[in-house]
């Protein structure tokens, strides 16, 4: 009887322990339920925990604060240390479920039970409320605010209970999930004082001891030696598991060395000191010669590499009125688009690793998803280069070489046609069609593109003088509208809400015609309307609107789109599996999926 009692007592204790564990989450720091990674996300299949990889960052982190504006290296680190409520595009991440209301103006989210930050602190609704109300919407915090506003208001965040969050919106907001994926959830316990004392912007600076930094990302900071390296170790409380129940990340450690020089990073990769690299096109040959793997993925659609003609060139005091009249002509800009030899630029500037483009790209693949794309001007983009057509358009505009010096002139007929009075202007023989084309000093592809453009322009009697200037100077000139023509790289993540600043007539980066803010053309009015309305439209409506937007921009050519660079990665395929690529140069996509191929593998073989 006594033995039976003891057994029953042990049974009770066991039951108690199990129920306590169930209440607090799963053993091993996992929440309940954990996020189970779909098999299709792991191209090399589930793995086992272990191993470490080395990767080079191009610069020091300026801060470990993931909210304030930062450089690419800080962002790359933040992506490994932190996570948001969602994963791009709208997959629930640290939340177990989310329920949008029928009118999409209210979303209820339920956090995973037993979820913990990387230092072991439990995550509750208070942390979500803190992140949004006290940090992201706080006027004292240097973080973007406009992107969160719908009809001029911030979303309302409230806690229904410890694990349930409610978000109320003044109107439907399609971009919400994307933003919730982009911004990380922060531990209130570690940062509340900084907010209270109004020093959040300097919180988590580079001197912060690693154990004072916590997040929901797959790794946590173990060591930072400035100028040399960061060591990130597995977050034992990470919330993802694979189909076999193995907790992610697979890797024990990621070592990020600070190596500023592009060539040194290539040497280190060739030498086997690092496992991944974003090579420049010119590095590809040497990497392939060494027998190392290179992967080229389709051209990303979001970055825009463009020529831009300043249509306010006279209003901003950097060019004569006749040049402004020329730049304002849609036919002239269309002619310029025909002069841009995109295929040659891809071949010479990108060593063939790119795809031509004739209009703006928004979400990945969007440009090609518009059903009426066949009707878009400048489509297909590889057929745009046509000097004959460009000459014809310029001739029709009466921009012809009147003084036979090989350079076209802005004729009296042209000025009369566009209604520019000629009094006080020099005679047409002195009004040469000539402009200054600025480009980024030291950027090989930008300078090369500008030179190719200049040479093609010379063939049709237009003179461009290529002037490389430092990056900061170029941006300053663009933002002040004090340039004639520029070759610019516009980097974006494809979020339609983030291009408003460029294409909206009142946008800060509307640098081709800031005067649109006072007086705009009909097509620009239509673009403005689309950009504002798409924010609160349904998905179908938005798709149609953005297609219309792309057609409008392609037809009116405010920017001359050139190409998209291919996504090129060099990675040790013989050693690592489940590599999902890099964003920019240094952000590792889904680092938690990376795993070691224990016995090594042959190219195209399986990762054992």
């Amino acid at each position, binding site marked *: 009887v006594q033995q039976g009692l003891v057994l029953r007592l042990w049974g009770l204790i066991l039951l108690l322990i199990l129920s306590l564990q169930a209440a607090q989450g799963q053993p091993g720091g996992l929440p309940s339920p954990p996020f189970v990674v779909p098999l299709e996300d792991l191209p090399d299949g589930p793995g086992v925990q272990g191993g470490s990889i080395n990767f080079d960052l191009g610069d020091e982190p300026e801060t470990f604060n993931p909210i304030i504006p930062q450089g690419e290296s800080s962002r790359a680190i933040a992506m490994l240390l932190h996570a948001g409520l969602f994963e791009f595009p709208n997959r629930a991440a640290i939340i177990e479920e989310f329920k949008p209301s029928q009118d999409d103006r209210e979303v209820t989210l339920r956090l995973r039970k037993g979820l913990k930050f990387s230092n072991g602190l439990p995550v509750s609704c208070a942390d979500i409320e803190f992140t949004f109300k006290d940090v992201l919407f706080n*006027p004292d915090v240097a973080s*973007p*605010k*406009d*992107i969160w506003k719908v009809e001029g208001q911030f979303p309302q965040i409230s806690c229904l209970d410890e694990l349930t969050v409610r978000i109320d919106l003044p109107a439907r907001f399609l971009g919400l999930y994307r933003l919730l994926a982009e911004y990380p959830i922060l531990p209130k316990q570690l940062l509340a004082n900084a907010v209270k004392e109004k020093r959040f*912007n300097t919180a988590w600076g580079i001197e912060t001891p690693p154990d004072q930094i916590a997040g929901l990302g797959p790794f946590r900071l173990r060591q930072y030696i400035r100028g040399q390296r960061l060591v990130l170790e597995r977050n034992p409380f990470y919330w993802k598991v694979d189909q076999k129940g193995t907790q992610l990340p697979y890797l024990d450690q990621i070592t990020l060395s600070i190596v500023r020089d592009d060539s040194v990073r290539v*040497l280190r990769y060739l030498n086997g000191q690092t496992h991944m690299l974003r090579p420049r096109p010119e590095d590809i040959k040497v990497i392939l010669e060494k027998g190392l793997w290179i992967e080229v993925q389709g051209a990303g659609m979001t970055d825009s590499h463009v020529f831009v003609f300043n249509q306010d060139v006279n209003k901003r005091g950097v060019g004569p009125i006749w040049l402004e009249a020329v730049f304002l002509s849609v036919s002239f800009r269309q002619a310029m688009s025909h002069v841009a030899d995109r295929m040659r630029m891809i071949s010479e500037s990108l060593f063939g690793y790119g795809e031509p483009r004739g209009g703006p790209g928004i979400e990945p693949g969007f440009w090609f998803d518009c059903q009426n794309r066949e009707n878009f001007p400048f489509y297909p983009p590889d057929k745009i280069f046509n000097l004959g057509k460009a000459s014809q358009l310029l001739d029709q505009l009466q921009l012809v070489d009147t003084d036979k010096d090989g350079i076209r002139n802005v004729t009296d007929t042209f000025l009369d046609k566009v209604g520019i009075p000629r009094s006080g202007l020099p005679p047409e023989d002195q009004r040469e069609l000539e402009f200054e084309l600025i480009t980024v000093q030291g950027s090989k592809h930008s300078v090369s593109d500008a030179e190719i453009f200049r040479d093609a322009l010379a063939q049709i009697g237009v003179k461009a003088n290529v002037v490389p*200037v430092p990056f900061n100077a170029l*941006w*300053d000139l663009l933002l002040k509208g004090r340039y004639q023509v520029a070759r610019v790289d516009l980097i974006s993540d494809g979020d339609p809400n983030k291009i408003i600043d460029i294409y909206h007539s009142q946008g800060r980066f509307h640098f081709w015609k800031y005067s649109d803010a006072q007086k705009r053309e009909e097509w620009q009015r239509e673009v403005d309307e689309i950009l504002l309305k798409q924010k609160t439209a349904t998905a179908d409506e938005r798709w149609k609107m953005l297609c219309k937007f792309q057609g409008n921009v392609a037809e009116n050519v405010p920017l001359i789109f050139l190409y998209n660079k291919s996504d090129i990665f060099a990675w040790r395929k013989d050693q690592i599996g489940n590599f999902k690529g890099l964003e920019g140069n240094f952000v590792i996509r889904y680092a938690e999926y990376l795993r070691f191929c224990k016995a090594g593998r042959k190219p195209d073989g399986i990762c054992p």
Partner: protein
Amino acid sequence: MLVVLLGVTFIAFLAIQLLPGDCLTQVLTTADQETITKIKQELGLDKPLLLQYVRWLLNALKGDFGRSCLGFAPVTQVLFLGAWQWSLLLAGMTLLLTWMIGLPLGISAAVHRDSWRDYTIQALSTLALSVPVFLVALLLLLVLYLTDAEQWGWTIGQVMADRYLGAPWSWAKLGNILLHLALPLFAIVLAQWAGLARHLRSALLDVLNQSYLQAARAKGVSERVLVYKHALRNAIHPLISWMGFWLPSLFESTLAVSIVINYPTVEFYFWNAIKGKDVYTILGGLSLLGLILVVGNLLADLGLAWADPRIRYE
């Protein structure tokens, strides 16, 4: 000294404003207008120019050199954290090696004037001065890569091998650090010894022709004593003065090498600030550079007084 420092920082402050763009240009692409206004207020960049400078100066006198516009870290942290020790090590070792190599070669060239030794030293020093420091560093890097220097414990782009980073001090660690230091040191010293040797040669030649040395030689003083005890002491004056201005040249060389071989020095972070037009970090760096220059000159003056009993300061 203070007036010089004040002048340097004020001119630098005005010069920075003349450059197109500002440090917020990098932030501009990711932040909205409200954020930028906030950052400007936070850093005091919304105030009139003169007021910005005066505020910075008053705070600097209290040891607060302002904050960087990226990451908002204090300037002293941006410039020195994890960097001062490498700058100091590199500068100290460069100074030591430059004199260890430049001094005997300069003396030898002067003493054996117009001999094959003189010609060889002259040719080598001309070559060393003509080759840009960054090119030497790049070539060395390539040589070490091609010769698989990793087998000796050398790792490209690091100040020590991975296994020693964060590890406790040991002879092996020190050895590894010195091994990694060899490349930047070689590249910098190559240019520095040549300058010293040439200066010394010409100064020594002037002194060796003086009549008091001819007299000593006639008295039977040995050539060794003549050169090392009498001539060198007098010839070294211009070199001591030169030392005061040697620091900017060292700064320049260290910067080029730091960029090429990824050596985390104060010079590199200063250059980063200039590139990013990070106003307060530049001012902080310039104040430091000015201070070093002024202190260097002071030490040179004291050195002159020590070397030449005829010079006395009142």
